[in-house]
């Protein structure tokens, strides 16, 4: 059943805050996503997982508006993202927070000022209030003493945590997190997972976490979407995905290195081909 949204486009009834419908995408002639369909429910942690190169980051780029989406494939609260005008994008961007893999901090600003930027730009809060908010967020990610540091003075893991603090600073309704555990030691990674779940519980935040870390994924997920070569291999509760009989899901969950075999075959074929060409 369809309704019309404010801009005259179709508005679909949806179970999720964000709904992806039959999304195919790529770069030039290289197709990365194939007919991807799933919904992101409100107030839950949705984990998108799969091996490197499976299309997770491309999918994330669509969800946060960094990659153009053709009409009819990504809906936010039932409104087609492809039909968003500048005002709708502004509203959507205020609703979301994004932690990029590298943290994406401004290198010329201190860590605290990195956190202050969105608050200074988007709110009328006093500087004293902004400073308190920044310090609360830094404490939540274990960087209490590092507000005055420059990003270059932090380790990779600390930059990632600072990036998370900045992503959280506006208390976004939806928080997108790209590979939260990468570059972190197991204890810090577990602490970060705990924080993500706390954010959901305490603030009703919707989280979308992209990861290839199985342990972390199942620790935090309310819903899991497994991508394989750009296709949704499985989607559902962690229990349902864990018990999937699909051999490709089992292979991923059991971390069987089928990829290496494929890579080896490609490698040998490539080398053989070179030899053949030379002889020819």
């Amino acid at each position: 059943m369809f309704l019309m949204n404010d801009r005259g486009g179709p508005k679909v009834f949806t179970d999720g805050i964000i709904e992806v419908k039959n999304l195919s995408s790529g770069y030039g002639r290289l197709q990365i996503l194939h007919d991807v369909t799933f919904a992101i429910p409100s107030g839950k942690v949705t984990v998108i997982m799969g091996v490197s190169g499976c299309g997770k980051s491309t999918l994330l780029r669509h969800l946060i508006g960094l990659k153009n989406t053709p009409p009819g494939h990504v809906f936010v609260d039932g409104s087609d993202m492809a039909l968003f005008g500048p005002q709708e994008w502004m509203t959507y961007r205020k609703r979301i927070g994004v932690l990029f893999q590298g943290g994406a901090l401004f290198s010329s600003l201190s860590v605290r000022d990195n956190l202050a930027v969105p608050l200074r730009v988007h709110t009328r809060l006093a500087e004293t209030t902004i400073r308190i908010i920044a310090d609360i967020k830094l404490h939540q990610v274990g960087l209490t003493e590092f507000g005055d540091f420059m990003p270059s003075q932090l380790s990779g893991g600390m930059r990632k945590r600072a990036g998370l603090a900045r992503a959280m600073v506006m208390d976004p309704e939806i928080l997108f997190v790209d590979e939260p555990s990468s570059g972190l030691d197991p204890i810090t990674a577990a602490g970060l997972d705990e924080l993500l779940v706390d954010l959901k519980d305490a603030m009703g935040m919707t989280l979308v976490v992209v990861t290839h870390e199985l342990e972390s994924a199942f620790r935090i997920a309310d819903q899991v979407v497994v991508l394989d070569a750009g296709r949704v291999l499985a989607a559902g509760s962690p229990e349902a995905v864990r018990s999937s009989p699909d051999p490709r899901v089992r292979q991923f969950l059991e971390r069987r290195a089928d990829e290496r075999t494929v890579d080896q075959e490609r490698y040998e074929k490539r080398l053989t081909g070179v030899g053949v060409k030379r002889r020819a």
Partner: protein
Amino acid sequence: MPLTVSWEEGGSVRISCDGVLDRDTVPDLSRRLFRDVLKKRPRHLRLDLSAVERMDTAGLAFVLELRNALKSQGAGFRLEGVTDSIRRLVALARLENLLFENS
């Protein structure tokens, strides 16, 4: 945001907040409270949050700022009507010791 300020005998004041305490409402609320209440140097302030429907980190920062300003004046501060969701927010920010010290 509706705000009720009740002065009591002895220079104590009770403030009730009603509605949403977030980054959009805090700037005006903060200005009003600092102008209309703190300048009169109350001896003790009770902040009733029982009618707050929603609060974010900006709301929490405002409460802490208010508490700090009162402490610096040598005045007492106490939170009342703390709902479960506000309590979770305070716990997430690990501010229980500062905000619930007299509650």
